[in-house]
């Protein structure tokens, strides 16, 4: 492998990884179940899903209402279609909660990260304050020294 392609590969790998620790832990280190849960939630909650479902319902009702060359398997009032709807709803609820639980977990993790960062940031701020105070003391000493020197010269 040439040096150039090695650099490109490394860049691509970096680009696919998250920078924020919470995203790294939550997305890059997700277990198989968590990955599937994310895929399921984003699959059901998409315009593709809504569109395909609507087309499917329209075809089902048309085939069972109007005279086509097909056998009518679920005539009015569409009891089997009702069952299909219920099955969809029975799975959508748990998947919704699955995704919600995962979001709540991420929120929890984000706050923990905020607490950690806030703690170190506060330490850094106090360090800055301490350093400036030290500077003030040093400047004061310089001033005192100059005043003493002027007094000794008697000007």
């Amino acid at each position, binding site marked *: 492998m040439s040096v150039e392609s090695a650099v490109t590969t490394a860049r691509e790998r970096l680009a696919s990884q998250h920078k924020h620790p919470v995203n790294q832990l939550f997305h890059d280190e997700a277990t198989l179940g968590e990955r599937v849960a994310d895929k399921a939630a984003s699959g059901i909650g998409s315009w593709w899903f809504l569109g395909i479902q609507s087309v499917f319902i329209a075809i089902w009702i048309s085939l069972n209402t109007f005279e086509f060359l097909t056998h009518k398997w679920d005539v009015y009032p569409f*009891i089997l279609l009702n069952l299909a709807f219920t099955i969809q709803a029975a799975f959508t609820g748990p998947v919704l909660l699955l995704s919600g*639980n995962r979001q709540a977990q991420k929120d929890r993790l984000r706050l923990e990260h905020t607490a950690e960062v806030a703690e170190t940031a506060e330490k850094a701020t106090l360090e800055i304050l301490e350093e400036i105070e030290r500077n003030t003391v040093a400047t004061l000493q310089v001033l005192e020294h100059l005043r003493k020197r002027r007094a000794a010269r008697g000007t």
Partner: protein
Amino acid sequence: MTQPAVHVPASMRAEVKSLIVHRLRRAHRDPDSDHKHPVNQAHYDEATLGERLADQLSGALGSWPFIITQTSLMIVWVYFNVWGIFIAHWDPYPFILLNLVLSFQATYAGPIVLLAGNRQSQKDRITLEHAADESDKGEEHITRILTEIRKNTELTLQILGELEAEPT
């Protein structure tokens, strides 16, 4: 006087960052661990009985074991009512009782989703309140730093005055 070594603030040191990630990873995989952030403490560690129950309920309903169990039961139900031998077909095609059972589940799932959602929005409210408190604290720190730098500048200007007054 020797030049001081480059001093990296605590928050930017690499070992501090990796320690944070290590602690976060532990907190992520162990939901019962003690929380560090006050909002998480209030939300999880100090939850009331009803709130704990709501969390457990939404945690159980929104889990892979629940989804897999429900799927298996559905398959078994349909199988026994279509091809079951030595057993009464209690809900033949088009499975009206199964429909009722699943509707029943969906009727409860809706409110439980909202229960979990309400709890999350409550948490969001507390988070913002806490952020406002923290922001006040940050402002106080910045004010102190600014005051100190102003004091420093005044002293430096006085030194300049002293130096200018000196005979050249």
